[in-house]
Structures are given as structure tokens and as C-alpha cells.
């Protein structure tokens, strides 16, 4: 859409929303939030940006096709799921590092899993929206 106001607003909203989405993602294990909502917010950030500035510009910001995010997310999630199997534990067994890390708290396979979810959600939503917008 051809409006200066929206365009410049979206420029500021994008980093803000992305930041917020990561925040929501990381706190998920302790407070409401998590990969889904985080991912959704991140994708909404990009959607707003693309609505204001056109798809091409958003694309150039994103640098790669959202499908890649999707793939990366699935891989991360799968890997965090099956990694316990390499040390003889069942699928999806939670593994944790010994000590908590500041800010994020405990780092464990569950966190990676959530990151995977986050990436998948971003990838999926953007793939869908971008594809539609392109073919309109």
C-alpha cells in the first residue's frame, strides 16, 4: 500500500516485533509464550512489513526463501528429538545442560525443540502469505 505513514511505521515495527517474538520464544518454558506464539509474532512482523513495502523488499530483508526457515526448523526440531537416541535414550527424551545460562535459564533439548517450532512457524506462515501475495 502506498502510504508513507504506514511504510515508515512498519520500518520501526519490524525490529520491535522481531525482538518481541524472540523474547516470547525464550520465556516460553517459564511463562506464557513459546515457539508458536513467538513464531507467529515474527511472521506477523514480516507480513506488516511486506504489506507496507511490497513483497520484494521484505524478501530482500529476509535474504532467503521462507521455505529454508521451514526446513531449518524441522531439522532442528527433529535433531533435538532424535539426539537422545544417539546416546541410547528414547525419542524426545529431555536432555539438559548442567548449569542454567543467564536470561534463558536452563538450556536443553526442549529449548532447541522450541526454536525449531519457532522457525517452522515463521517459515510456514511466510511461505503461505508470500505465495498468496505473489499470485494475487
Amino acid at each position, binding site marked *: 500500500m*502506498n*502510504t*508513507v*505513514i504506514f511504510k*515508515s511505521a512498519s520500518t520501526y515495527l519490524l*525490529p520491535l516485533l522481531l525482538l518481541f517474538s524472540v523474547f516470547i520464544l525464550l*520465556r516460553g518454558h517459564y511463562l506464557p509464550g513459546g515457539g508458536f506464539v513467538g513464531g507467529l509474532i515474527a511472521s506477523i512482523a514480516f507480513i506488516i512489513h511486506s504489506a507496507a513495502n511490497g513483497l520484494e*523488499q521484505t524478501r530482500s530483508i529476509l535474504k532467503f526463501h521462507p521455505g529454508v526457515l521451514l526446513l531449518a526448523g524441522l531439522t532442528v526440531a527433529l535433531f533435538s528429538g532424535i539426539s537422545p537416541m544417539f546416546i541410547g535414550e528414547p525419542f524426545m527424551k529431555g536432555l539438559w545442560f548442567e548449569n542454567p545460562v*543467564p*536470561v534463558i535459564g536452563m538450556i536443553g533439548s526442549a529449548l532447541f525443540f522450541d526454536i525449531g517450532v519457532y522457525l517452522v512457524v515463521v517459515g510456514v506462515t511466510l511461505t503461505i502469505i508470500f505465495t498468496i501475495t505473489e499470485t494475487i
Partner: protein
Amino acid sequence: MIKTRFLSNLLLAFIWLALTGNFNFGNFVFGFALAFLIMWVITVNRRENKYFTRLPLSIGFIFYFIYELIKANLQVAYDVITPSYYMKPGIIQIPLEAKTDLEITLLANFISLTPGTLSLDVSDDKKVLYVHAMYVRDKDKFIEGIKNGFERRLLNILR
């Protein structure tokens, strides 16, 4: 260039701190790193902006804004709750001195946020702003009010 980027980065890191509400060094470092990452992700060549350069002006502006906000709100409230309408609405063209997108956007937003007025659109050559207003007793006076009130103050801060 590098400086402004650094500043934005810093700013985002602080927002991170505010968001998490956990003010310690580790969190700051993390926030900084995260902001760096995000900026890396989103940066395309666009004009950088200056934050906090005119802090005192900003604070003054905020108070002015709150004052306007409350004043206008009361006016509108009166109109809303009393049975008859006192308003004289219309769409007014306001010539712009603000040049950059940021300036225009901020101006338009503040106008919109003030009760009784609504920025409808900016012309494509960015020369005029179209504002819908509830109380336009005198068109020229109204335009004058906006230009001397919001626009001047805002531009003072930004330039």
C-alpha cells in the same frame, strides 16, 4: 553510519532489557547480541535515524502532547455524551514543512492521536497532509494551529 547503527543497536538492547525486566550485564550482552542479529537481518540501505539527540525537547513535546490530548478529549467527550452535536467536521489540506518520512509519520501520528483530528493521508509528493477534523470553525486558524503547534515542535526535536 557506523555510529548511528551502533546507537540503534544499543537502543534495541535496552528495549530488550526493559522487556525482560532483568537488568544485569549478562542480559545486556545477550540483548545486544540479539539486537545485532536482528539488525543484520533487517538492514537494507535506508536512512538512519537519530534517537535521543534532543532529549529535553522531546520531554517538552511529550508534555505538550499530553496537554493537547486531555484538552481535546474533554472537548470530544462533551460532544459525545451530550445529545446534540457541536462539531463542524471536515477534511483539511495542510501544507507540510516536514520532509523526511519519519517527520511526516510522527507528525501524522500525533495528529491522529489527538482527539478530534485524524490524519487521512499524505499526498504522494509529500507536500500536503490531509486531516479530518471535528472542529473546524476556521480553516486557516486550524491549519495555523497544527503548523505552529505539533509541526514546529516536532521539527525542532528532529532537526
